[in-house]
């Protein structure tokens, strides 16, 4: 019995570390908002778009975990996002076997290429459970291998970023090839059903949206759990002073590997939820510029603050959706300008800049209330 009490106490204490009471409340409100209120009031055509944004939010959280907290700027994370998407796409293609244009057990593009049987790596994807497992495990494994090779050679900083770019570029080239067996440059598309529900039906879209919302909140909680744990503190220590951290006895490679693989798998999950909502996955999802855009979401919002990542992802993509419709030729200028402005003037992003602002305001208040000595920096009550 006391063991149970211990566990509960432990859980309670951990929850207290993750958020203050106010924070938990805000989180609950937010979760309700995006998971219940929004799908109820939003017009049907907006639901997939919003769902897409939720997936971007998840990817941004994954990026922030890696960059903001561990200091590892990956410019190839869109690869994991895309791989997750491909995994889901493979399930969706298998689930409509026999219903394609060619009425074959094989997906249309394979028939078109004159293939007669399913490649070995497509087997098993008719099962949803298998597909979900694989779309997490495969990117995770890739991340594990690549990360192990990279971190153990002590590659970091800009070199690491460049090498991740090369990785995603190489993968994109590979997937563009028809011979690779993923639909070449057309990718996988024309999906019909997921778990029996037709993808075009509004209820399915809503369900997918809600699933994305739940996944987003779950991802957020997981990231919050990690960054408020001792592991999170070690990661930040590694980011700030790797050598010192090693001298304290922490094997930096293992820690980096952990957060790298976790981040990759979260991105893959985001991609998997993204694909049924947009209806297509192709190799251009892996292009180098996509990964760089993911970095700017986090930079704009504020890295090292999970809420900043979400804010950045939604602001930038919202702006993109609006501008590409209203002033298409201005979008690239806006995006480019965003990159320049944020790096020059907002290195901590919007939320990051908010911190010092809050501090400054608090200081002013304290000074007005009581003259010097100067109050200690206000501990930020975060959400």
């Amino acid at each position, binding site marked *: 019995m006391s063991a149970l009490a211990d566990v509960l106490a432990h859980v309670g204490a951990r929850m207290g570390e993750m958020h203050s009471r106010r924070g938990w409340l805000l989180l609950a409100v937010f979760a309700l908002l995006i998971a219940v209120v929004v799908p109820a009031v939003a017009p049907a055509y907006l639901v997939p778009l919003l769902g897409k944004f939720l997936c971007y939010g998840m990817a941004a959280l994954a990026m922030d975990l890696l960059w903001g907290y561990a200091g590892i700027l990956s410019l190839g994370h869109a690869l994991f996002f895309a791989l997750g998407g491909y995994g889901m796409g493979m399930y969706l293609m298998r689930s409509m076997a026999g219903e394609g244009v060619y009425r074959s057990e094989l997906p249309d593009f394979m028939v078109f290429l004159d293939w007669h049987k399913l490649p070995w790596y497509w087997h098993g994807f008719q099962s949803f459970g298998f597909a979900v497992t694989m779309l997490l495990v495969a990117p995770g494994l890739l991340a594990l291998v690549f990360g192990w*090779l990279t971190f153990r050679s002590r*590659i970091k900083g800009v*070199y690491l970023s*460049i090498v991740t770019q090369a990785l995603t570029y*190489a993968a994109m080239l*590979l997937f563009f090839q028809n011979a690779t067996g993923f639909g070449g440059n057309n990718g996988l598309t024309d999906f019909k059903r997921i778990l029996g529900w037709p993808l075009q039906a509004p209820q399915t879209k809503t369900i997918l949206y809600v699933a994305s919302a739940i996944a987003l909140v779950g991802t957020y909680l997981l990231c919050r759990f990690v960054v408020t744990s001792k592991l999170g503190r070690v990661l930040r220590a590694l980011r700030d002073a790797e050598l010192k951290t090693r001298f304290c006895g922490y094997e930096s490679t293992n820690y980096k590997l952990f957060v790298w693989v976790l981040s990759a798998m979260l991105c893959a999950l985001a991609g998997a939820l993204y694909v049924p909502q947009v209806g297509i996955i192709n190799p251009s999802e892996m292009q180098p510029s996509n990964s760089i855009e993911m970095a700017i979401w986090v*930079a704009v919002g504020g890295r090292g603050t999970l809420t900043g990542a979400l804010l950045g992802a939604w602001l930038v993509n919202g702006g993109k959706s609006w501008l590409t419709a209203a002033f298409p030729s201005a979008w690239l200028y806006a*995006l*480019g300008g965003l*990159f320049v402005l944020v790096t020059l003037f907002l290195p901590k992003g919007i939320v990051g800049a908010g911190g010092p602002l809050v501090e400054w305001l608090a200081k002013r208040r304290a000074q007005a209330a009581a003259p010097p000595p100067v109050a200690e920096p206000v501990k930020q009550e975060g959400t």
Partner: protein
Amino acid sequence: MTARRAILLGAGGLLLWLSFSSAAHAGMLEDAVQGLASSSEDKVEDSIRSLGTLDDARAWPALDALSDDRLRVGADGKVYIWDSKTHDAKDPITLAVVQAPRPLKEVEVSNEIRRVAGPVLAQLRLGSPSAGERLAAAEELSKAGDAEATTLLHKALDREKDPKVRDALTLAVARVDLASPSADARVGALQIIKKLGNDEFLSAVQRMVSKNDQGQFNEPDAKVRAAAQEVVDAIAGQQRLVSVVGSLLHGLSLASVLLFAALGLAVTFGLLGVINMAHGEMLMLGAYSTYAVQTFFQAHMPGAFRWYLLAAVPVAFLVTMLVGMLLERTVIRHLYGRPLETLLGTWGISLGLIQTVRLIFGAQNVAVANPDWLAGGIEITHGLVLPWSRIGVIGFVIVVAAGVWFLLQKTRLGLYVRAVTQNRAMAACMGISTKRIDMWMFGLGSGIAGLGGVALSQLSNVGPELGQSYIIDSFMVVVLGGVGRLAGAVAAALGLGVVNKILEPLAGAVLGKIAVLAFIILFIQRRPQGLFAIKGRVDA
């Protein structure tokens, strides 16, 4: 009579006879040519045959014009050759432009006539005074393998003195002999083909070693088959050589463009420590500058068009250098010491640059033409042509690389740059304006990339996204070659360009590229400081 008188008389008589007979001959030639326009087909064929007998190469233009529907009959009944381009009538034998009385009637030619004219045409051409013409005739015949031409060929071979034409005629004979009933003759022909032949003979010889539908060899004699197999192997070997050399050259020219990009990047990244994601766009701007100069010349100085490329070089250099310096002053200067931010910031700038170019020049590719002195190439052997444009690019990059080396090693500016690279604080203490150096160096790096764009415009398509495909490659070059050393960038660029192109025929272009990228990723794991790094600890 005295000996002298006898000789004079003899010479005079000879002369008289020659002129008389040549006159007679000339008269016969004119008659035969005139006969080509006859309304009777038989008479035409007779005329053709007598032209063959006369064996006078001057008859060839008229006969060729006949086959080509270019022979006309004037109102005076005389025959003329018609030049459709200049709308002139020409005398059939002297080819002088004359005033022919109109109307000019076309001479009708039937297939039968053409058939008769064919061999005579070949024969006359073989007797042309121009060696080039004879060579062309011989090569045509060697492709045709026409047995009827055999006597012609033997006759021509006997009197031919020019060695190249002799070879071509010998080959022509050999091709015919391939079908000879005598096995020895066939072996002899194969040996000639092995010595002189090229891949045009491949299919004919390969037929001999392959089986027909009944499962029997097309060539019954085993000895002949063996000789034929040797020929096939020899030709295959030659083809491989051509392909390898071609690939190598292609790889070298690709490496040259990559080297331009990498040289510039080695300056900005290697010496200044700045990751410039807009570097690819400098290449693009250089290419578009070339296009703009070309357009300007087309519009305002069409006469000097062939020199537009020379004007484009300084223009491209200046434009990209200025853009680079502007970039450095406004953005990059404020991001020194923060490589990740520089990476992101310059990426944003590259987006803006691409969009600007799109808005000004359009999103489609633009055509940049090679000036005439860069068109064509040197033909090394049959089938292997080294394009002048690629040779030019390679030469250009060597000059520029040497220039950069000279600048850095032998000039004062270069000394300052090296000082700033090695110890910025110390250099500043010594009065070197590090800010100015940074700006000039960034400009230089961008300018070099601009020159690369000029080169690139001569080799491939020019579009707004040109730079994107080079940026990853350039960074790979710098990372592979090691930061801080130009020699490394050179070695890596050469290596990458050549390896890429060599892998291409083996694995396909895309897989080749993937293999190269994978190799680099793995290489960096083992040797993070690159090929030629400055010794010391590896800091990112």
